[in-house]
């Protein structure tokens, strides 16, 4: 099965993702008590086999990253991977706990909560725009090198919706890489839903 999206489908997906990320930025800004500026997100569809090369373009092979995963299921299902550098996660935890130093547990907790808000807002907004419902599962988190992110489990998904954006919060940069992993059946459902949305818009 082809995972290719046509230009119209990609266009509406980008628009929905823009709305979702705008809402996500507003929510995070409120959480951090800092004004957030979102850069225009890069939205793309790639094969999971190409994900490692894609990740390698932006992430340093020597650095450690917090990698958080959250499963969702329903009318279309999949898994969201949120990647944030250790430096960003430390800044994040200091801000969220309003403390000059933080423990590893607090850093992990901050990253998990940020991920929960980011992924739930993005996916639930996408679902709402497409008039379907999804359910979320609790996220899991681990620290790893970028070459360890794409494992067998990730490769069991066929397609990846790439959402890449940089969110600036005043003095601190929080750079997040978001990947929505989906399987053939889910991607076909997503395409059908996008077509339905297009028909409604241009009816």
């Amino acid at each position: 099965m082809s995972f290719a999206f046509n230009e119209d489908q990609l266009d509406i997906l980008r628009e929905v993702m823009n709305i979702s990320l705008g809402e996500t930025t507003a929510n995070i800004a409120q959480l951090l008590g800092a004004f957030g500026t979102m850069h225009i997100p890069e939205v793309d569809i790639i094969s999971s086999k190409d994900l490692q090369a894609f990740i390698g373009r932006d992430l340093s092979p020597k650095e450690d990253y917090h990698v958080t995963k959250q499963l969702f299921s329903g009318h279309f299902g999949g898994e969201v991977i949120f990647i944030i550098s250790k430096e960003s996660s430390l800044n994040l935890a200091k801000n969220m706990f309003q403390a000059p130093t933080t423990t590893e547990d607090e850093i992990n907790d901050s990253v998990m909560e940020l991920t929960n808000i980011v992924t739930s807002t993005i996916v639930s907004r996408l679902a709402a725009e497409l008039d379907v419902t999804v359910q979320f599962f609790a996220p899991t988190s681990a620290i790893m090198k970028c070459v360890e992110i794409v494992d067998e489990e990730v490769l069991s998904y066929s397609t990846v919706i790439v959402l890449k954006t940089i969110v600036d919060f005043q003095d601190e940069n929080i750079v997040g890489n978001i990947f929505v992993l989906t399987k053939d059946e889910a991607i076909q459902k997503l395409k059908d839903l996008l077509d339905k949305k297009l028909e409604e818009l241009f009816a």
Partner: protein
Amino acid sequence: MIKYILRRFKLKILVVDDSKVARKYILRSIASIGIEAEFREAENGQEALSAYKEERADVVFLDLTMPIMDGYEALREIIAYDKDAQVIVVSADVQSEAKLRVLKDGAKNMYPKPISDEKMRTIFAEDIV
């Protein structure tokens, strides 16, 4: 008037979320709007249910996505135990379906994460009796 009298006493508030920072955020917001309260915290639905059965809370702030027992199940269990329980659901899930589901199951209201101080005022002014 009843609400005014209630505010004269310390409310018992149970905050349920697997994230420590999310619980802290709710506690901070409640304190910042001048509500005097005795707080208890739970990390999942099962802990919340045990805590509620041990001592009823005047208000429960409940997350939905949690390990062991999620917020949907915890809500049903708490309402089955105490049909008058005042449960406010706080979740990053912004789907209307999720809100309809928790309202049907007995929640007083549902708000997207994070809750601003202004929104917290609304909760105590309009949702909680």
